[in-house]
């Protein structure tokens, strides 16, 4: 166990896993309570488009994927606000556009990109120093916005009209949440993989929702589950030599079903 921690790539993966576990489950409570699970999936696929563009351009894919995904998040919000279409319809449109672009970008690259698989399924080995700094910066933003925005987002989640009647800038706050969510999805790509990021956002928060009596407890519980299952899943994926993202999601799912049983026992 200790020797695992002495491996530099494993140290990087663990730090990234803890940060991503914290970020995804923290924003996940708003995603779950606002019934935006599909938005998580949509943003992850937008990140695929961005990463493919980065690979095509031959630059660091994440630096392209961050602005690309943020733009898609803003576009989803904008279309939803302008057209009166249901939120999941706007997500569905951009989801498809981003994946289609990603496929075209990878095709245009015209060479085998092994990297692409690391992005699709996540890989401990893929986490590099620069990724850590980016992830740490995003986690810093989450901590910096928590004292002001947690209460505002939660209030608007509970009842938009009450929050608006109390003069909270609900629409502007929503844009900020979308942008932070988009950035979180992108930095989670290397650890979790594009395909499973939505689960990362949803499962810890849903588990906490089963057991928490208050929204504060739900938030703290989700973060604890997110961080704990990331560490456990990464270590397990190293020993079993299987993809890290999938292993973490399986650990989360195990915690979720344990939570369901605990709730049945309690009720």
């Amino acid at each position, binding site marked *: 166990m200790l020797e695992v921690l002495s491996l530099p790539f494993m140290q990087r993966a663990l730090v990234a896993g803890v940060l991503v576990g914290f970020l995804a489950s923290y924003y996940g409570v708003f995603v779950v309570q606002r019934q935006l699970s599909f938005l998580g999936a949509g943003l992850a696929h937008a990140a695929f488009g961005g990463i493919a563009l980065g690979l095509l351009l031959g630059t660091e894919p994440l630096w392209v994927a961050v602005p690309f995904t943020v733009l898609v998040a803003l576009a989803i919000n904008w279309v939803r606000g302008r057209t009166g279409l249901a939120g999941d319809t706007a997500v569905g449109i951009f989801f498809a556009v981003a994946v289609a672009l990603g496929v075209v970008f990878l095709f245009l690259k015209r060479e085998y990109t092994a990297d692409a698989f690391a992005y699709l399924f996540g890989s401990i080995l893929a986490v590099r120093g620069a990724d850590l700094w980016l992830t740490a910066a995003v986690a810093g933003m989450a901590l910096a916005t928590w004292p002001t925005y947690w*209460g505002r987002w939660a209030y608007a989640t*509970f009842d938009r*009209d009450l929050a*608006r009647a109390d003069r909270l800038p609900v629409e502007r706050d929503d844009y900020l949440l979308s942008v932070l969510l988009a950035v979180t999805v992108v930095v989670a790509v290397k650890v979790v993989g594009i395909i499973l990021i939505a689960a990362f956002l949803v499962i810890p928060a849903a588990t906490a929702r089963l057991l928490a009596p208050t929204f504060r*407890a739900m938030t703290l519980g989700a973060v604890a589950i997110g961080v704990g299952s990331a560490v456990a899943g990464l270590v397990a994926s190293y020993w079993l030599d299987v993809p890290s993202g999938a292993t973490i999601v399986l650990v989360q799912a195990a915690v979720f079903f344990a939570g369901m049983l605990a709730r049945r026992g309690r009720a």
Partner: protein
Amino acid sequence: MVFDSKKTLEQPGATTLTMPAVEVENLTVRFGAYQALAGVSFQIPPGAFMTVLGPNGAGKSTLLKAMLGLVRPAEGHLRLFGKPVGATSPADLAYVPQIKTLDRTFPARSLELVLTGLRRRWPGRPAAEEREQALEVLGRVGAAHLAERPLGCLSGGELQRVYLARGLVRHPRLILLDEPATGIDVVGAANLYDLLNAYQAAFDVTIIMVTHDMEVAFHHATDVLLLGGVQVSFGPPREALTDARLRQAFGHIGHAHAMLRGGVPDA
């Protein structure tokens, strides 16, 4: 259409010199091409208890939303305590929404909902002083025993009291209630009106209540606004709620008679 709004204010003893609590002038609200409310004009003095009546789709909730600043008037003016809505402090307004708007999946206790009235955002851990304030006002509405109860486990009448406590905890100057009797039995509704009257006797607060309940309009209100998309009548109950005006608002007089017996119009 504007009916005897001046007469009320110019009666002997009426407070013509003090600033009106609510002043509405030719208010028109549109949602796209749909005109929800048109040509509404009235004034009520501080301490008034105004009920707003009319069939479904008459613009009753829209009027409340305009007063809360949730919808922007297409035409006309709306002033609360002499100021345009945007310039009033949200702390002066207590909004008691329809209980059917509650998201019952949101993990929260009654006390936290009351605290949103103080903090104007979702509360994390309450400070001892805030807690005391919230418990005191919950006690005043006869709901102290509900403080730690999950919101999802409250009956309609209990929830209504908690929402009312949420409004009263900020010591408002104006209380806006949207169909508070809907989903509550007759005894519960009567208790609610008694609470409002007692609170009004203790504090010089103005009340505006959207309702389908003719009884409360007749027996508790100082003023009645009858809407049917446009303003049908405004004045003291006996003058505003004549058979002719009710027929004009509700179409068939049978509906009005049903309401006088305590029924609800299906218009």
